[in-house]
């Protein structure tokens, strides 16, 4: 189901939802941050025009600190305006937390959240979804999204439901609006193309993923330890890239019970760049050196999870590039490896 609506009407309806129905809405702000209707009742500075928020969306489903008990009072929440890169990240988290053993805490947060995605119409220099197999807009086949917002122009939106929950929402609150015309949809599609092209232009010095290029390069790249040592030299192991990464899921369980009948434990986000991450009692450490841990993060995203899920766990959101105090750019690291691997292969021949 599709509906055409003006930007102002859309924001007004969200505002009504907060005011009249006390709905909890998470939304992107003009300053780039993720806000919500508890701390910002009037949805001031609401925007759909930015790229993804500064904060990774994982913190809604997998908080940085979680006491490992199910929040039974959690109310239905609506997450508005997330982009393809975060949708892809939720796909990774779903695979991690909902397959085999089900993580009930994550499941509860996920089930209580209606996800409204939005097209990304102004990609920035740090965006690179296009070169890791993505695109700056969400389609139904991408999954995760209940309802998507796309742009005819900056003032006119097309709302399109992707799931029955999304359709219900659309029927309930947007039934008075018209369907978009063919012309408007064509205009929307051309906007998507423009954004897509922008991504390629911003990334033209990097190498686009095709034929499993990243996977094949990184799979055996421990043969290229020399390159990894050079690339990781600047890394200060602050863990910023792990924390801000929307698809990094590692956590540490902290045992803090008072006694056996007063159990308490929580979990906090953990970082594979930290020396102690893989260390076992007695001091043995499978990744003792910085370059091994640095390499592990790339291999986790482009090799290991690719082998598990057939898609990369890097979504091209560019948060790690923005956050890095050493200005390490994941795209450059991969480019250098692909090039070095190419040379290596040539030398071997």
């Amino acid at each position, binding site marked *: 189901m599709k509906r055409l609506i003006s930007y102002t009407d859309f924001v007004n309806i969200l505002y009504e939802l907060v005011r009249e129905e006390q709905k909890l809405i998470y939304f992107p702000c003009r300053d780039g941050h993720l806000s919500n209707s508890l701390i910002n009742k009037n949805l001031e500075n609401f925007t759909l025009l930015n790229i993804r928020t500064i904060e990774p969306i994982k913190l809604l489903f997998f908080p940085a600190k979680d006491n490992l008990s199910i929040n039974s009072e959690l109310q239905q929440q609506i997450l508005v305006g997330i982009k393809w890169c975060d949708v892809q990240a939720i796909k990774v988290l779903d695979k991690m937390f909902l397959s085999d053993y089900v993580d*009930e805490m994550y499941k509860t947060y996920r089930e209580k959240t209606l996800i409204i995605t939005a097209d990304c119409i102004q990609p920035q220099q740090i965006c690179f979804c296009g070169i890791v197999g993505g695109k700056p807009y969400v389609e139904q086949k991408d999954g995760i999204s209940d309802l998507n917002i796309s742009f005819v122009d900056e003032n006119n939106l097309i709302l399109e439901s992707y799931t029955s929950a999304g359709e219900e929402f659309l029927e309930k609150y947007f039934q008075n609006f018209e369907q978009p015309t063919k012309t408007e949809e064509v205009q929307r599609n051309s906007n998507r193309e423009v954004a897509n092209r922008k991504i390629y232009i911003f990334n033209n010095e990097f190498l686009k993923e095709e034929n499993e290029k990243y996977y094949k390069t990184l799979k055996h790249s421990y043969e290229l330890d020399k390159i990894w040592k050079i690339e990781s030299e600047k890394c200060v192991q602050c863990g910023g890239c792990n924390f801000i990464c929307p698809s990094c899921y590692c956590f540490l*369980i902290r045992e803090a019970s008072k*006694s056996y009948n007063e159990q308490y434990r929580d979990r906090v986000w*953990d970082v594979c760049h930290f020396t102690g991450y893989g260390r*076992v009692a007695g001091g043995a450490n499978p990744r003792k050196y910085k370059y091994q841990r640095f390499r592990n993060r790339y291999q986790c995203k482009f090799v290991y999870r690719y082998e598990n899920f057939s898609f990369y766990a890097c979504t091209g959101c560019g948060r790690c590039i923005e956050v890095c105090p050493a200005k390490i750019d994941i795209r450059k690291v991969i480019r250098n490896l692909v090039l070095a691997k190419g040379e290596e292969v040539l030398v071997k021949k």
Partner: protein
Amino acid sequence: MSIYSPKNFKIKKIIEETPNIKTFTLEPLNGEKFVFQTGQFIELTVYGVGEAPFTPSSSPYKTETIDVTIMRVGRMTEVLHSMKEGDIVGIRGPYGKGYPVDKFVGKEVLIIGGGVGLAPLRSLLLTLIERINDFKKIILCYGARTPQDIVYKYLFPEWKKINGLEILRSVDKCQPGEWDETVGVVTCLLDKIQVDVKNCVAVVCGPPIMMKFTTLKLVDMKFKPQQIYLSMERNMSCGLGKCGHCQIGSYFICKDGPVFSWEQLKDIPEPFE
């Protein structure tokens, strides 16, 4: 209660194996049976201190209690070693995939253990002994640092009486007159055994360095990678394939292991250390 919450177990008995290794017999407080497959592991909690993975050393045929043999090596095991019979600990599990015992039927089984690495292998050995006629023969090669560091000293006399089970032991070093078996690292025992490599599986558990050299030696002896089974131990934290700590390549040791064939691991960077 979440998938991360432990159940309470009472310490029923403590055996001091060596100066820094103890075997704890644990009994479920709720009276339930504890069912596991040999080679699977558990997460053991010392309340308020920490949680760590261990593989039971008892037979899976025994379900009223489980035995866990633990070396005092870190913060949590330090406290555990100071605990008394009757104290309460927490257990989650069992987790992971154990030894594929059914695949060993009709074959020679070569078990190679180092130090406290004999713990999971004891569980395997007890399982194999239950159905010893299913296997062509069983050889146990066990190495410890010194004669004092040998675990389950009291069990070896019984095991030596079993038909179809051959036992060889070595110590790295010893005082003169203290030891009349082999002196040297555990791999030197492999030169002394007779095995039909084509119809044999090898099962290895021990410290990383021992696992590495034993694997290399077995490959040298023409064991195929799929004939070598390794009990990988890392810092499995959640035990459920979620927290990431025990990742080894695209595997999670806790979920896809802890028992792996060398075939699965040989192309992964730094499988041991």
